[in-house]
């Protein structure tokens, strides 16, 4: 099992979710995060003074998938979340040793 951890643009969340639905609607966990990579934030001002917000709001998606589903999941996300401009985000793949379904106590692959 692997955890796919994707940091994407806010406005892409719905599209990505639609795309994942095609892949069998896997369980998904979403977190509001802020981050910066190479993207510059939009200028802000307060009472006439400008300042930069260096940390931009992003969406973190976490999906734990079976090894065989890894490729298509990563693919779907990178394809759909892309705009081609800086700030599109990253996808990280992290090993998962085990999983449990709380409702039933099932462990391992059955828990996904």
């Amino acid at each position, binding site marked *: 099992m692997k955890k796919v951890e994707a940091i994407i643009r*806010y*406005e892409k969340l719905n599209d990505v979710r639609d795309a994942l639905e095609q892949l069998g609607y896997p369980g998904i966990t979403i977190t*509001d995060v802020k981050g910066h990579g190479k993207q510059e934030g*939009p*200028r*802000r*001002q*307060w009472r006439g003074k*400008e300042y930069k917000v260096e940390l931009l*709001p992003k969406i973190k998606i976490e999906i734990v998938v079976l090894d065989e589903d890894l490729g298509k999941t990563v693919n779907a996300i990178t394809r759909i979340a892309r705009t081609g401009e800086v700030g599109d985000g990253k996808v990280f793949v992290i090993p998962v040793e085990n999983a449990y379904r709380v409702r039933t106590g099932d462990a391992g692959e059955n828990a996904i």
Partner: protein
Amino acid sequence: MPQVEIAINTVWVMVAAFLVFFMQPGFAMLEAGFTRAKNVANILMKNFMDFCMASIGFWAVGYAIMFGAGNIFAGSSYFFLSGIPDQTFGLPTLAFWFFQLAFAGAAATIVAGAMAERTKFSAYLIYSLIISALIYPIVGHWVWGGGWLGELGFLDFAGSTVVHSVGGWASLMGAIFLGPRIGKYRRDGSANPIPGHNLALAALGTFILWFGWFGFNPGSTLSGMDFGLIAKVAANTNLAAAAGALVALGAAWAKTRKPDFGLTMNGALAGLVAITAPCAFVSPLSALIIGAIAGLVMFGAVFLLERIRIDDPVGAIPVHGFCGLWGTLAVGLFHESAGLFFGGGWAQLGIQGIGTAAVFGWVVLTMGAVFFTLKKTIGIRVSAREEVMGLDIGEHAVSAYPDFVTKG
């Protein structure tokens, strides 16, 4: 008139004017609460500037057109308040002007809600000046300033048509020319609810508006000496609001099995808008019925607009447009002597129909022209990117709630 009476009138009308002014934050809180966090600073600024624009515009031009001597179509003296008499209608003229200004500001700011979350700030300012300096004062002249509708016997005590329908139909044109917000309608045409971000603000706004209406309607006696009428107008205003809210609550409950927050708040406003024209001419029971029906009119109009894919984030068109229309017609039905139901025959109803139709036509044509011109020149809508990011960042480079983690 004895000095004491002028004093009483002045105190009364000034207090009423302050209350009507206070409707501005009512609109601001309601509209902010019913829209998304990312557009809050923008809608607040629009509401705020509305009154600033109206103050200047109604001082320079609006009052002259509305109450200046002229013809039955428009007035043409008193520009920049020059040459005004000391007193008008038993009040210092400046007191009368200020009371009227507060009405002009209300008409303008209604529209902000219907056009929320996508309108360019600069285009909005221009619109705002035009409506309070020109479009609204001309309707006002027709009905209250010695114009043709007043002469015809058209009755609109405190402005269901003059203020609210003008705002409501301008909203309609604005919403049509803008088009719906991104995400409001799905590919299959079905509507996608976009919940407001802060219901505490929305409720506060509604309460403030109700409060302010006690200046709007009872203050429109323009006289503190008219105590019987003041009391009746206040009682009627309140009963209509309560009935509107209750009926809207019930209708929503019946339809969705849940007592709906947004529609109930709008229901009270529906009742208030509808009773604004007839409040001086009808009995408390009639007021209650007019308000109750207004709750249904609003309810129906909300779903009607969604069906024809007009996007009005706060319900300004159902509340101010449709209920303003309903209330004005209701004068022809419930007027204690001239109303159809009270043996007055069809005459008054006919006149009310002519008046509402004329105002509808006038506003649709002129505001249509205004929005069309703005669209073709400086543009009335922000870019799709700005809309998605929010107008606060895009137009004003601020965030309304920078300390909070928001869902965007």
